[in-house]
């Protein structure tokens, strides 16, 4: 689908709104709404038309889900972007049984990379509801691969890519804005359409994090 006018995206925007409401309503259907939301968000913005995501759930329970890029269960987890590069995406979600069975992230990582399945990454955001035991980074943080221009600013033997820049809630909407506005990844819908949609839903997405 490659429509050029804002009106041709109206049904996608309406479906996105419905999926956004559904994911935040909680309960057993929330994960399906979340999957739909992610699919539509990327369809509206930076996803290549052949890209895909998959939802994994256990047969024995319906309160834990995994969402990753790609269709192949034994394949990688990258989403192909319009610009020819990739966003590696893995999200672990569950229902908060103490708080109205609301959907929430247990863990999340998204990484912009040059190739589909290698270490050619540019930046990455990680989020873990529980602390990672081997260190104490902020629950949400950003990594950037690169080399500082100034010598001696990093601890010995610590590359810049291992620095945890605090980033409280690395939403998927933030990833989309970063890719489109700062890295020039082309979007499918016109700017005024996808920007309005992201603005509408990003603050609501924060509810999936530290609650």
């Amino acid at each position: 689908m490659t429509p050029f006018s804002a009106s041709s995206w109206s049904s996608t925007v309406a479906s996105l709104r419905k999926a956004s409401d559904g994911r935040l309503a909680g309960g057993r259907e929330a994960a399906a709404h979340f999957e739909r939301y992610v699919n539509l968000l990327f369809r509206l913005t930076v996803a290549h038309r052949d890209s895909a995501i998959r939802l994994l759930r256990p047969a024995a329970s319906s309160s834990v889900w995994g969402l990753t890029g790609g269709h192949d269960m034994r394949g990688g987890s990258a989403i192909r972007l319009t610009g020819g590069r990739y966003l590696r995406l893995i999200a672990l979600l569950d229902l908060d049984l103490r708080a109205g069975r609301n959907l929430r992230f247990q863990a999340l990582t998204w990484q912009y990379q040059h190739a589909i399945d290698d270490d050619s990454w540019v930046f990455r955001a990680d989020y873990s509801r529980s602390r990672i035991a081997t260190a104490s980074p902020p629950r949400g943080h950003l990594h950037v691969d690169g080399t500082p221009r100034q010598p001696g600013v990093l601890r010995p033997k610590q590359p810049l890519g291992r620095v945890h820049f605090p980033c409280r809630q690395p939403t998927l909407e933030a990833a989309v804005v970063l890719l489109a506005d700062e890295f020039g990844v082309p979007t499918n819908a016109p700017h005024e359409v996808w920007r309005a949609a992201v603005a509408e839903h990003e603050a609501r997405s924060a509810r999936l994090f530290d609650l």
Partner: protein
Amino acid sequence: MRPTKTYTLTRDEVVDLVRFKSLEKGHDPAEIFRNFAAGDWRHFSQMLEAYGLCAMLPKDDPVFSE
């Protein structure tokens, strides 16, 4: 963007997939199961899919103590 695929996995499929994802990234699957059970999600980004699959198993699943 193509329609999303949904997979519903049995316990044995989950365990098998964790083993596959661990070996694919050069890790011993037993180590990944042990790390998860201990709350030590090391190699966080690289192994998050495997840890997510571990989270789909009951906490007392025998695979965590093998």
